């Protein structure tokens, strides 16, 4: 009987092929992975293909910045997992050189964000394999189509010429490498291609780009081969890149982790400008006019006369020679809560790894920027240097501040440090939103979570707002179940080094009569700390593109 029933239902489906077609099928969020060519030349238009998923009926490419526009020509679906959006991209002559973010807009909402490059004056080309390139600068658009592929571009060079080659990846999982080779052969193989220079990236380290950069001076003129490969040998249609070859030496990359637009006070490379303390205070402190830091210089350890500083003060110097340590005395008139902040404006981790120690006159260490904890077994110590350390000094006196590199074998003119010692200022620290775009279904709710770092024992109330919501969308306060975080075992004095995070949520409610958007709108998320009973100045969390999309089928 059951079988009969199933058969009857199947038959019914067969005779009504458009069953369910009048109600849009549930559509997953659009996701884009790459665009090819990755870069275009300013002042030119060209056809590009965006790869991704759930891109059917894509309407447009959305560029938040000016200078680039795109028109969708068509959408293809070569297989169930991939959609291709063909678009005519127009790059205005005034478009800024460098990466431009974009998203794809579809009836199912707005996609994630990827980059498209603008090459400025360099022509963006896709050369034939056997055509030697002899004019520079040039921007070559390529793709490692298959695992194990190495793209080879012949170049012709004059003796003594220097080139800078930079391979920029257009896909998150693609780590490009550059090699320069020559077909100089060997006794075994006259056709052997011999590598003469190679780069995978200037420095592999968390927070730094994996893009490759190679500067090479060609002693002999003639024909060479530029090889582009992928570090682990992967490949595929998303493995797109832009290879820029520039005559001479372009400015070397600054090997600092990229700082976003958001407030950042726990990176060695954030800039502590002269108004730094005021900036900190402006984030929810009730201190209107904090004292700015006085400048000091430390001396080499062992020097006869060690200068004295008082907080707030900033010590600046450089560890030029390996093993060198600098010292300065810190005078405190009374017990107080202090912060030591460290900036490395030039060389930074992992090259320059600055250690700051505050010691008593007998050499006992009171505090250091080395956060030490035990591993989960409680067996091994694990150490991390920190750019900020908050602590309490319980007695007045004169203490010694020591600054050096964690190694004994490293030093250099670029081992520059700036150490700020200041009183603690309770304030709102880093703010992080849980989403970088939102697609809101009609009649549904969506939770937007913001994480706030309470710095230096900040205990004030903070208001959370979303401005510029689309019509039909309202934001109300929400409470979520707090995360069950087990206490950290063997965590040492974590409170000195890690701020206390707090999470708050907004519930975005999309009414049943909300009209689906054609284009995204930018919603501004802010917090306002309450200072002395009044709502303080807004502090930006971020701008999030939001779209209202059709009702999800029941």
């Amino acid at each position, binding site marked *: 009987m059951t079988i009969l029933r199933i058969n009857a239902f199947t038959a019914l489906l067969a005779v009504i092929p458009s069953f369910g077609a009048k109600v849009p099928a549930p559509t997953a969020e659009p996701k884009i992975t790459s665009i090819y060519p990755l870069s275009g030349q300013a002042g030119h238009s060209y056809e590009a293909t965006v790869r991704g998923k759930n891109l059917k009926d894509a309407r447009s490419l959305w560029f938040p910045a000016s200078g680039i526009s795109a028109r969708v020509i068509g959408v293809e679906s070569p297989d169930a997992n991939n959609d291709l959006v063909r678009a005519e991209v127009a790059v205005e002559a005034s478009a800024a050189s460098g990466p431009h973010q974009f998203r794809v807009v579809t009836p199912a909402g707005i996609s994630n964000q990827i980059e498209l490059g603008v090459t400025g004056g360099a022509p963006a080309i896709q050369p034939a394999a056997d055509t030697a390139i002899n004019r520079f600068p040039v921007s070559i658009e390529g793709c490692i189509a*298959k*695992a*194990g*592929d*190495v793209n080879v571009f012949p170049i012709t060079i004059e003796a003594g010429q220097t080139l800078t080659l930079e391979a920029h990846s257009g896909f998150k999982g693609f780590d490009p490498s550059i090699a320069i080779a020559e077909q100089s052969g*060997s*006794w*075994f*193989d006259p056709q*052997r291609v*011999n590598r003469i220079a190679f780069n*995978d990236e200037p420095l*592999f*380290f*968390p927070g730094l780009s994996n893009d490759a950069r190679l500067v090479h001076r060609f002693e002999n003129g003639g024909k060479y081969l530029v090889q582009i*490969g*992928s*570090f*682990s*040998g*992967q*490949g*595929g249609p998303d493995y797109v890149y832009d290879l820029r070859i520039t005559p001479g030496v372009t400015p070397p990359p600054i090997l600092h982790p990229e700082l976003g637009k958001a407030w950042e006070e726990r990176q060695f490379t954030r800039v502590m400008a002269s108004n730094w303390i005021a900036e900190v205070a402006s984030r929810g402190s009730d201190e209107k006019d904090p004292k700015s830091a006085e400048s000091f210089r430390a001396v080499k350890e062992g020097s006869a006369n060690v200068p004295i500083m008082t907080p707030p003060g900033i010590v600046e110097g450089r560890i030029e020679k390996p*093993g060198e*340590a600098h010292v300065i005395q810190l005078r405190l008139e009374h017990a107080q809560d202090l912060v030591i902040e460290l900036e490395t404006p030039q060389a930074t*981790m*992992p*090259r320059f*790894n600055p*250690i700051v*120690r505050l010691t008593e006159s007998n*050499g006992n*260490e009171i505090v*250091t920027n*080395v*956060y*030490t*904890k*035990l*591993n989960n077994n409680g067996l*091994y*110590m*694990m*150490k*991390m*240097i920190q750019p900020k350390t908050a602590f309490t000094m319980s007695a007045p006196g004169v203490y010694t501040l020591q600054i*050096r590199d*964690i*190694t*004994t*074998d*490293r030093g250099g003119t670029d081992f520059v440090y700036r150490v700020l010692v200041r009183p603690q200022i309770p304030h709102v620290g880093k703010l992080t939103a849980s989403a970088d775009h939102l697609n809101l279904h009609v009649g549904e709710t969506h939770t937007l979570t913001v994480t706030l770092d309470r710095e230096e024992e900040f205990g004030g109330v903070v208001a959370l707002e979303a401005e510029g919501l689309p019509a039909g969308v309202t934001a109300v306060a929400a409470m979520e179940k707090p995360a069950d975080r087990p206490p950290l075992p*063997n965590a*040492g*004095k974590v409170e000195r080094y890690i701020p206390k995070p707090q999470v708050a949520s907004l519930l975005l409610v999309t009414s049943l009569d909300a009209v689906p958007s054609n284009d995204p709108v930018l919603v501004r998320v802010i917090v306002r700390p309450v200072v002395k009973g009044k709502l303080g100045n807004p502090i930006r969390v971020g701008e999030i593109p939001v779209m209202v999309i059709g009702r999800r089928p029941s």
Partner: protein
Amino acid sequence: MKSVFTLSLLLPAFVFAAAPSSIRIEPKGRTLHGDGASQQLLVVGGYPDGSERDLTSEAQWKLSDPTLAAIEPGGKLSAKKDGAVTVTAIAAGHTATTTLHIEDASAVREFQFSRDIGNIFTRQGCNGSGCHGGVKGRGGFKLSPGVLNPKDDYEWIVKGGGYQVLTAEIKGARVPRIDIKDPAKSLILLKASGSIPHGGGRRFAVGSPDYNTILKWVTDGAPYGPEGTRENRIVALDVYPKIVTLDAEGRQRLLITARFADGRTEDFSGQALCVVNDKTVATVANGCIVTAGRLGETSVLVRAAGLAASTTVGVIGPPLAAYVDPPISNFIDKFVFDKLRRFRTPPSSLSSDQEFLRRICLDLTGTLPPPERAREFLASKDPAKRTKLIDTLMNSPEFIDYWTYRFDDLFRVGVFPNGINAKWSQMYADWVRESIATNKPYDQMARERIAAQGYDGPTRHYLPYDVIGPAGETMAEEVRVFFGRRLDCAQCHNHPYEAWSQDQFWGLAAFFSRVFKMGDQGNEYVVFDHPAGEAMGNADVNGSIKLFHPRTKVELKPALLDGTVVEGSARENPRKVLADWMVKNPYFAEAAVNRIWSYMFGRGIVDPVDDFRSTNPPSHPELLDRLAAEFRSHHHDLQFLIKTIASSRTYQLSGRPLPANSEDHTNYSHASPRALDAEVMLDAISSVTGVKEIFNTGVSGDEKDSGRAPAGTRAITLRQPDMYYSRFLDIYGRPNRLTLPERSGKANLNEALHMLAGAEYQEKLAAPGSRLRTLLTQAKSDDQVIEEFYLAAYSRLPGADESAAIRKLIASRENREEALRDFVWAVLCSREFSENH
């Protein structure tokens, strides 16, 4: 070896050396110090064939001034008073003289427990590793091996107690081994003299000199005496001769000399324990007199004063009638051929051009020469073509590829050994490659690796998996790599067979005890040395960076092998001091040259290459010393060393043995065949078949799931080989580099099965674009195909009989292509292909 010598005995054309042509006295010009000083003298007879024999027992002695010294018939000279005495020996109708100087003959020598009592235990074998010198002693009584720790020995004898592995505390009842009130009832005398049951049997008789010495010591109250001063410490034992050759029933007394830190020497011939490794070849008795047994080669281990030394003993047949000295290319040949001559083993002839071509290409580049290059070389009449080829190969990019691979192996480049991070492994691999490509001096490479700090390539080897390895293990690896010695046993207890003590182990380990990594997110580790006196947050977790001796629980300080404690400043990198000391230590150069030698010959002068020890003596000690000296004087230049070895006639000898040297496997009388390394073998198969290997990071080989090495990547040039799956490489012994690689080269059943079914032996044979397909497409004849594959695989042309046999086989088959495929398969499966010979 046995059959060679047996065969030699049967050969009719021997000439027996009848009488010596000269004699001499050994040692020469010695100075004797102190009361009771003595010197054993030897009379060495030189024979026309270059051989030498010990004639001491038949010599007659005369002294220029008998008031200065006395001499026994056996050649032992005892000092009486200060002066210079000339000794004359007469033997076999010849006369020899030498002059000895006697100083401070009236100075009374202070009693020292270690020398006067401890050495009796050594000489009598009481403190050997098989007896009371074992880890926990024997029968409740423990002695340190070879009086390594005289204070412990004294404590255990005088107060009783024994050794505990994990604590220095004495446990259980303490039974003194001496009886001060009744010295003759001392256990140590009763047991050793067999007066009461003793598991070790009787070691000396009641009333013997050793018995009396101990009895007197106990009677005197069993003093310890003064500690030996630093200058007074014995630093080495020398054995003469370094190589002993004995005719059947020949005898040789060994001369054992102790060298002190202040440069003095002292005859220890009567104070040492001599043990022969193979008692069928030789026996040793009566104060280190070696007596020949059967024909063959063995070694005699000599122990005294906590040190050990050894000498090689060869029992040889009568001289060959026509021993032709081969030409010598460089100093290597002199040492090798001298020993062969002494051992009456003729070297094979110079290798043929085809043997040389294939061998040198594989040894210098891991690459088979292509057929056209083989033809060219074989046809060349240039007398300097071998030298030119060596230069060409050493300047080739393949040389850099191959030696990078060699050192990648030794230095353990891989994802898992280097922090489980392919990028770090790449950083480390780049450092190795750069070092090889620029011919960086080897001592500089060692310094950079041992003392590495920061975030550079060589620091990554301090991060096995993703942690800093234990100090002891890390040290033991550095010592094994750069000193060729294994200290691991001494981690838990004094080394049972060697002079390495637990204190030495942990003293060296302490250099690595402060190595730390910074970071905990898995991929930002900076390596540094934690300052000794700074907390740097340790107090926050009640942590400590101190390293304690596992037994004595004493905090350890970095100490060199000689006990020198390195008291650097708190923030000094102690590994810099260690690295500097290591590269200047004689062990460093000898270990390096031995390793490179083993790469070129398939076995080291000391073999295994990282197992230098007194019980594993070098086959050619003087050659090893000279190679090490040349290496040092050429600023640790690896290319110089490789070229020197490759240019020697020894290296270029044929692999075809002679009847009289076919059983020689240690003296380099002919080239020994060696299995190709897995990686070289796979590359060779790809080269012969003309089908390149594809290396995928995933097992499936599906490019969607995995990465793939660039097309044409050879196995020896794989970056991070542990990232690439290869059944072939695993079967043929690719090491995982999680520990120091040891390639056995021994065939196994899996290899045999793989030959039958493996893709490399099947699919590559006639794949599109393969060498065979190309030849067939070009309509080449059977002879042409056969010749091409012989040149590609063996670097030689086929013999007429080989060609004829193969042609016949092909003709007997209906399908020519199939027959040729089988022929190629047979070539790849042959030993001539899979070995370097």
